[in-house]
């Protein structure tokens, strides 16, 4: 993966490393997803998301609050680019939009110390981690999170040195132009460096892997026909649409 000054974007069919102000980039059009390896997600990282579960964390089936980061994997066909139209399956009225910061690993991270962790980051992107809403965190079906197109991300990877403090970024979600969520990455139980350290203590993150920091409280939902826009400055804005599932 190549990241130079500015950011790395994939216009359909070609990889373009851009070194000009992003204001001069095309704001629309079809983008391929940035070239990432395995996509790992983190749940319940935002303090208010965990707090919203209340006493349920002590009740069955959970019995205790999570100790290690709660992680999951999005398979390769989840990845979709800026401008994508994502199918909402017939079984769902709406999808939950897990708007969050995506951390792109720049060099192999194995048993990394928290104090060194940010040096392993190539850059940051914007992720719309889509799910069919489901009530349980115990052992949810892959059907809820692993569907094709369920991870629009981009529009590009912004080089890490343009993001001096990834733990103080505002994430804003608009659905059809109306604000639906606003939170700060400052609310995370594990910030970027600590998350990389804890995850890499038992699994190596490869160059290019994507580690998502986790969604904010009260994740909004969107229906087929609606447009989702997630803004995280200084990265930019990721836009995608939801459409009804084409008949089989």
């Amino acid at each position, binding site marked *: 993966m190549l990241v130079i000054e500015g950011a790395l974007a994939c216009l359909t069919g070609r990889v373009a490393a851009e070194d000009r102000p992003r204001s001069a980039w095309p704001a629309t059009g079809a983008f391929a997803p940035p070239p990432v*390896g*395995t996509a*790992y997600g983190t*749940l*319940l990282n935002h303090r208010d998301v965990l707090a919203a579960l209340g006493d349920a964390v002590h009740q*069955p*089936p*959970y*019995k*205790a609050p*999570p*100790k*290690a980061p*709660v*992680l*999951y*994997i999005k*398979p*390769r*066909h*989840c990845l979709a680019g800026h401008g994508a139209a994502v199918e909402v*399956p017939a079984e769902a009225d709406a999808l939950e939009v897990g708007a969050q910061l995506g951390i792109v690993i720049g060099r192999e991270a*194995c048993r990394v110390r928290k104090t060194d962790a940010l040096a392993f980051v190539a850059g940051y992107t914007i992720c719309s981690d889509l799910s069919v809403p489901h009530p349980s*965190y*115990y*052992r*949810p*079906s*892959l*059907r809820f999170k*692993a*569907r*094709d197109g369920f991870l629009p991300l981009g529009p590009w990877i912004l080089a890490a040195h343009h993001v001096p403090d990834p733990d103080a970024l505002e994430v804003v979600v608009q659905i059809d132009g109306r604000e639906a969520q606003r939170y700060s990455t400052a609310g995370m139980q594990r910030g970027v460096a600590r998350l990389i350290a804890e995850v890499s203590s*038992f*699994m*190596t*993150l*490869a160059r290019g892997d994507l580690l998502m920091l986790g969604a904010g409280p009260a994740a909004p939902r969107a229906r087929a026909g609606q447009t989702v826009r997630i803004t995280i400055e200084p990265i930019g804005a990721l836009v995608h649409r939801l459409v009804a599932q084409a008949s*089989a």
Partner: protein
Amino acid sequence: MKHARIAWAGAVHSAVADGDHLRLADGTRLAEDHVVWLPPVVPGTIIALGINYADHKKELANELTLSAKDEPLAFLKGPNALVGHRGRTRRPADATFMHYECELAVVIGRHAKRVKRSDALAHVAGYTIANDYAIRDYLENWYRPNLRVKNRDGATVLGPWLVDATDVPDPHGLSLRTFVNGELKQQGNTRDLIDDVPALIEYLSGFMTLSPGDIILTGTPEGVSNVVPGDAVVCEIEGLGRLVNAIVSEGS
């Protein structure tokens, strides 16, 4: 045909089985202990099944909160987990229960989207053996099985061979055995899969596209037991070979 990926003499090669040897594309014949075995497939998406044998389900009954199972319990793994035949797997220093899981692994050969059961096996490139270790100490009840239990570096052994699907006419009558230090510990047969290979391909491809190189680990029967550094663990599946692995300590 049986295919392997190996490292030998400074390069990575594909190889095929030739009697009890390996044969490279240029005809070189090598003994199996003269090469480094890599996982036989460069993995795409790795999907694993929990509790897909009735007897193993009973074995785990005291920790399941499920009363009935209405769909396969599938989860995903990352490529960091894979290690080849004759590889080593670390046991964490603080673990008290680490166990093997011998599993039939299905390797996808053709893109599969909304494939019906009757067409499913045509999408299989071949089969291999997986030994998918779990560290039970780290089990938490959030998005089970959590990655700290099931996605550790080098804790999913895969190989030795990718055996062409045409050489495995019926993947549902294969005996499966695990030996620890030569002692038979786990025994089962793929005829006892709750969701068989076509059912899994139909189910998974119904919501996610499967592509060449994707791997489905179909689950393990009863008979899991603790392993410690120094143990030699061998998983056998009829017609697919013997997958050898050594347990080592954290600092090794």
